[in-house]
């Protein structure tokens, strides 16, 4: 299963993603990503520590979040990737170009200082 919650920490919107983000489960989250972009959020942290599995559709949704926020001059940081999701990010070479942090706390601190 997959679920997500939203938290407001300082100026950043923190999206905590839990469970398996794949073609079967990504639907609601995809719609949420569109809403977040339409709300003109500029500082978004994705806390992926509780994320256990991700497939290409799931990566697509996270990438779409990244691209949409960036397109309006904002920033998206990814935090807490472990295990399979981390491997996928590495395989896709996303680790080279995305801002990855060990914990959501670090990402939020960096977001606040930038």
């Amino acid at each position: 299963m997959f679920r997500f919650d939203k938290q407001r920490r300082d100026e950043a919107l923190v999206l905590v993603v839990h469970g398996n983000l794949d073609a079967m489960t990504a639907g609601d989250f995809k719609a949420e990503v569109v809403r977040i972009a339409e709300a003109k959020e500029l500082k978004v942290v994705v806390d992926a520590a509780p994320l256990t599995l991700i497939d290409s559709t799931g990566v697509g949704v996270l990438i779409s979040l990244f691209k949409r926020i960036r397109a309006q001059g904002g920033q998206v940081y990814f935090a807490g990737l472990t295990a399979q999701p981390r491997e996928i990010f590495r395989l896709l070479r996303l680790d080279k170009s995305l801002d990855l942090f060990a914990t959501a706390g670090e990402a939020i601190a960096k977001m606040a200082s930038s």
Partner: protein
Amino acid sequence: MAWLVAMDGELIGRRFPLDAPCLVGRGPYNHVVLDDTRISRQHAKISPEAGGHVIYDLNSANGTWVNEVQVKRQKLKPDDQVRFGPFSFKFEGDARTGPHVPHPGGKFVEVLTSVGAEPPGDIIDSLDAKIATNPGLPFGLAEMEDADRKLRTLYAFMQSVSTTLDTNELIDRILANLLDVFPVAETAGVYLQDPGTGTMEPRKLRRRREPSPPRHITFSGVFHEEVVGKGRAILSAPLGGKPQRVGASGGVAMHAPILYDGEVHGVLHVRGGDDGPGPFNQHDLDLLTGLAAQAGMALQNARLHQESLLQQRLQQDLLLAEQIQKSFLPRQLPQVAGIEFHTEYRPAYSVGGDFYDVFWLNYDRLGVFIGDVSGKGVSAALLMARISSDLRLAAMAETDPARSLGHVNRIVLERRQPDIFVTGIYFTLEVKTHKILLANAGHLPPFIRRAKEGVLTRLDGGAGTAIGIFDDAEYESTAFTLAPGDTLLLCTDGVLEAASPSGEQFGFDRLEASLKAGSSKTHELAARLLRDVRVHVGEAAQSDDLTLIACGISGGEPTEEELESWDETTHGRRRPE
């Protein structure tokens, strides 16, 4: 007890009871439905009357025949042969033939029998006779008028609901009709079964007097048991007392099951005002039951229609996408002496996001691409098809594979499809020297099986980011040469992630074992690997697209004459100037 017994056709042997008026015709509301164009919608009626059973022809086009004599109105004798168009029946008489007394615990079908029995054109004729000669008949004037009203209501309802195939529109019409039909009703509602959970969910509730907010209608426990569990219509007493079946009066609310395919798929509900005695009686319940049966047919039609439309659209989409996608896969691989290709393309669904291409770049250089679009199905397939042409253009424009991929990345980003990205490997191969330049855009690394000692290496060089994510993505090419007997293997996730019935993935270790044990002949090596994957997967369903390209060197090199002679069979190849 008297019966009408079918003597031929599909109905042969079926016995229709004649203890109540029995309608024969093509329309679905008849008791005996004869689905044939030679039968009129409402063809004939057989009524139990004081002196025995009487058959009436209802102005049918092809007539009603008793013992091969055409009749308009005829008293039936035991063993009379009755024929409507091509359908023959036998009338089985009974000494105790008499009028029907509806029994109070009747199921809806029987209730409907007494509701739908009298066609409107027939009533006035038979009315006088019955009342005049049979004062003891259970149908008095009030009941006859009531039956007439019901029947007309049913017809009007059927016409209203049968002209739409949209479920929401249908529900609106049903509710509007219910409030019309029952002037004392304050609330009308439709419950439909949720196909996922199987529970009855209120679909819509309508109150006569807006804007008072709709109150949640309770529908639970014993009501549920009677209506949904047993398929019975119920009149219920005030104050949520025990439900009463047909026969009671003074009901404050009614529930009738919506049936189709013999199952309860929904419930029609009507409720009176909160004050005063309950306004509904048995006749109202009969009527609601008949309306629910019509509603069931209409809802089923709407559902079937929507399903078939959706199905058709999906099928067409898939077919189109499949054709487009197939047209972008190379029909024939370039044939070059000394070089062997083995390709495999197995989408998990009829279309996939995987893709490969092998094409001539110029006189002595081939381009080879394998790719995987994020997501699955039609949209992924269509994007893949476009990227294939982008890649060919970029490959012609740039000799360095890294620059070609950079080009494709820019094109894909310009299309602004934010949730799509592509992984892929593109390499060029010089057909005489077997030199390779390879760039990887976030794809599973390729493997090289060296003929020498069967060593397998994973090629991590030339790796860059997946296509379609970053404007500033940079790619790099890595160079190497294949020796005779070497095979370069490119594949998509579908190979490593092919799962066994217990969920275990094929994985790198099995891949390595298969390739090491394999032949230095590319076809045999690839065939063995695919067989090993198939054995591993066994009966499990393929969940991911599986694509593989093996490119091996069998030794020797093409002569100038050979290169010249392949022009006709290869496309995209440029002649040497």
